[in-house]
Every structure is written in structure tokens, then in C-alpha cells.
């Protein structure tokens, strides 16, 4: 190695470059609401990056942009997906769905599922969607439900009537049932007790251990310090100027 050689930068799993997002509210007379401008960030495999900042800073919006749930006006959102690099900002709907099936996991704050489907099937579904056998998918789902302390008598019930904390744990189980290479977490411990918070920290550590790239919002400073390798501070655009 020559003296001034630099070690190669680790390949990113997720790279956000020059990202700009604003909402134009036509129903409110065309008010334009800037949310992000010129946002850059990279997350490497095995790394957990935390987004931090006041309410309204655009943290959740950024996660939704990466997931393809919000449309970007500027910049790119590159995700390494099965050996290729896909730009979520310009990908077709079909490509985004493929990305979500295999590469991008997202634990949101709301559980949106077909009513009347039992919790165990709700959790096993993402695993089935990547082609796992029914037995394997159910086994993984059961393991996660146990670890997240969902009582076994609830497994066969649809989660619509579950408590906020239970629904959040169903969401978490869905997010961890597949070994997604990129995982987006929006306040995953917000409604959880101390024991379950520790379980989530352990799940995150295991995901990092297998090389997943995580981008998350952790309102709880203790959780953030425990799981995050880096913290990115975000501010609402009005204050940013």
C-alpha cells in the first residue's frame, strides 16, 4: 500500500443525494410547505443512523421518501437492491414494490392491514412474499411474536382491536420477519414498555450484525445512544435558513 492511499469507502446500502421535498397544498389555496432541501446522507451495511430533531423537522417524511411513499421533487435516493442500484425517486411503481418486497423494510407508526386476518398471518406475510415456505414463515413469525411478548392467545386474532403497544409490536415483527438489507424505523419504541424496548434494541443489534443498514427515528435518548452509530440532526426548514 502506498503511503497516501486511502482505504476504500464502504459501499453504501442507501445513499440520499440532494434530496428536495415540498408539499403544495392545493386545497389550502396552493400554500407551499418546504420540508427538505439539499439533503445528503449515506448508510453503510451494518450501520444504524439516527435522525434527530424537533417535531416537524421532516424526519418521518425522509423515511417515507426513502420507502417511496412520498414523491421527491429533487435529488436521488439510491438503494442497493440485489446487486443493482435503484433510484427510488425515479423508479416505476413495479420496481418500488419489488424493492419493498426484498430490500426495504419499514416499521411505521400505524398498522394498516386487511381486517379479519390473524396476527400470525399478518406477521408471516412479508416472509411468504419473498418465497419462504409456509412452515418457515410461520416459525419465524411465532419466534418474533414470542420475543416481543405478544401472548399466544392473541396470535390467531386480527390485530385491529389490539392496544397501541401491541399493534406497534405486530408492526415490528413484520419488519424483522424478513432479513431486509435496509430497514427504516419510525419511532419503533414509542409505545413500548422497558422489557420490549430492550427486545427492540436487541433486534436492531442483530440486524446490524447480519449487515443490515438501518435508518431510524428514536425519540428515546437511551435507545438512540444504544443503537445508533451516527446521529444526523435535522431542523425544520424555516429555522434552517
Amino acid at each position, binding site marked *: 500500500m502506498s503511503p497516501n492511499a486511502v482505504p476504500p469507502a464502504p459501499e453504501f446500502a442507501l445513499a440520499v443525494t440532494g434530496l428536495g421535498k415540498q408539499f403544495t397544498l*392545493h386545497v389550502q389555496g396552493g400554500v407551499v410547505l418546504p420540508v427538505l432541501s439539499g439533503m445528503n446522507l449515506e448508510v453503510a451495511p451494518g450501520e444504524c443512523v439516527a435522525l434527530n430533531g424537533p417535531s416537524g423537522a421532516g424526519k418521518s417524511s425522509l423515511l417515507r421518501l426513502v420507502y417511496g411513499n412520498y414523491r421527491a421533487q429533487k435529488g436521488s435516493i439510491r438503494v442497493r437492491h440485489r446487486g443493482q442500484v435503484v433510484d427510488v425517486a425515479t423508479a416505476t*411503481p413495479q420496481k418500488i414494490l419489488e424493492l419493498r418486497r426484498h430490500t426495504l423494510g419499514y416499521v411505521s407508526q400505524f398498522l394498516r392491514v*386487511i*381486517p379479519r386476518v390473524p396476527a400470525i398471518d399478518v406477521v408471516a406475510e412479508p416472509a*411468504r412474499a419473498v418465497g419462504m415456505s409456509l412452515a418457515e414463515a410461520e416459525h419465524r413469525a411465532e419466534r418474533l411474536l414470542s420475543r416481543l411478548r405478544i401472548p399466544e392467545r392473541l396470535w390467531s386474532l386480527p390485530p385491529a382491536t389490539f392496544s397501541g403497544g401491541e399493534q406497534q409490536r405486530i408492526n415490528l415483527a413484520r419488519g424483522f420477519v424478513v432479513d431486509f438489507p435496509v430497514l427504516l424505523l419510525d419511532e419503533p419504541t414509542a409505545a413500548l414498555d422497558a422489557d420490549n424496548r430492550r427486545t427492540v434494541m436487541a433486534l436492531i443489534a442483530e440486524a446490524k450484525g447480519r449487515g443490515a443498514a438501518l435508518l431510524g427515528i428514536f425519540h428515546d435518548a437511551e435507545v438512540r445512544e444504544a443503537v445508533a452509530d451516527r446521529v444526523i440532526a435535522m431542523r425544520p426548514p424555516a429555522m434552517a435558513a
Partner: protein
Amino acid sequence: MMAATPLLQVRGLTRRYGARIGCRDVSFDLWPGEVLGIVGESGSGKTTLLKCLSAQLEPDAGQVVYATRDEGPRDIFALSEPRRRLLMRTDWGIVHQHPVEGLRMGVSAGANVGERLMAVGARNYGRIRASALDWLGRVEIARDRIDDMPRTFSGGMLQRLQIARNLVSSPRLVFMDEPTGSLDVSVQARLLDLLHGLVADLGLSVVVVTHDLAVARLLAHRLMVMRAGSVVEEGLTDQVLDDPQHAYTQLLVASILHP
């Protein structure tokens, strides 16, 4: 989900009713295994578009190119009438907004379902009846209603019977106009689960018209939003509902409690 060619390629589809516009210049591709939702206010042209797509109504302009199994992509309006009829029987299902349009009211529930199987060549009576019973069960119609006439059924039951009749013959493509509109929420949920499973397991493709944005969210991969006969916005379902770009879509989403 990605095959080499789309199952349906729609270009410039336009249908007028005299001076009034039914639908105007609609273009899109539908891929195998994909569910496309069409939403929009009453009178926006959803049913007109669905009827043109499914060859129930002749458009004034435009093309509907369907990837046939044996001859590749063909414009359905350029096919001979018998050929088109055959295609509709073997490859497609059509679930009408009003169930009586899609059912034969003069024959029993079981015959309504079994007839579809016979149309695609089934001959064994025992097996046809077993299939009919199975499908009545899947749409939650009690087994002992199999020999009853449709006129003894409620509106919601008629809709479920219509759905069973259309799915029993394993179509590749199903057109549905407000399939869950007349159902109570519990049966609606069961049906959503059933459709979801068919799409995931069998690669069924669906074009579904619905005014219910919650149904659209759970069922459709992609959405098209119609207004006054035209498509004003289209895209990934959750993107259209959570980050609508067009003023009309924003209004539509804002008018709903929990889309």
C-alpha cells in the same frame, strides 16, 4: 410479478355518449399479477372505462391490446366477435356494479357458479358441484343455499355469488366495478383477504373500480384517479393516497376520514 409484456396495453381510450364524455384519452399498462384501482367521484367515467376495457362497450377511439395465451398481444376490438366471446369466457371475469347484470336470475346459485365451469369445458357433474360448493364457502354463502334461486338472496349475497361465479373458472384477468360497495364491513374484509390471496398465489390481474379509498389501499398496487372522464393522476397506491399531487386527488383524500 414482472413478465416481459404487459397483460393489457391501453392507449387513447375514448368513449362519448352524444355530446357527453364518458371517458377520454385513457392510456395505461397492466402487468400480470397486478391490481389496478380506479377511483374518482360519481359520474367521473369509471364504469364507462371498465366497460370499454372489458369489451362490453365499444370505444369511439383507442385500443385495448390483450396478451392472448396463443397469439400474443391482440387488439380486442379487432378480433372477430366469436373469438372475443371465447376470450371473455376463458380468460376474463367481469364483476358488475349491479349483481343482477352479472348473474342468471332464472337458475339456482349452484348453477350460476357451475355454468362458468361448463363454459370452459368441465363436464363431470360431481366435480362441478363440489367446486361450486367450495366457492360458495369461500364467499361465505351457506352450503344449504346452493339450490336456492338468486332472487331469494340479499343484495350483499348476490354480489358474493357474482364474485364466486367469476372466480371459479380461474380467469387471468378480472374486471370489478365496486365489488364491495354493497357488502357489510365484515364480509368485505373476508373478500379483500380472498382477493389478496388469489392475486398473491395465482398471479391474478385485476382492474377494480371503487369509491372506497381504504379498499383501494388494501387491494390495489397502483391507482388511477379519474375526474370528468380523464385520468388526473396515477401511481403507486400509497403514494397517490399519502402524497397526492393533483388538486382533485388532494380534495378526494381530504374528504375521507381514514383513507
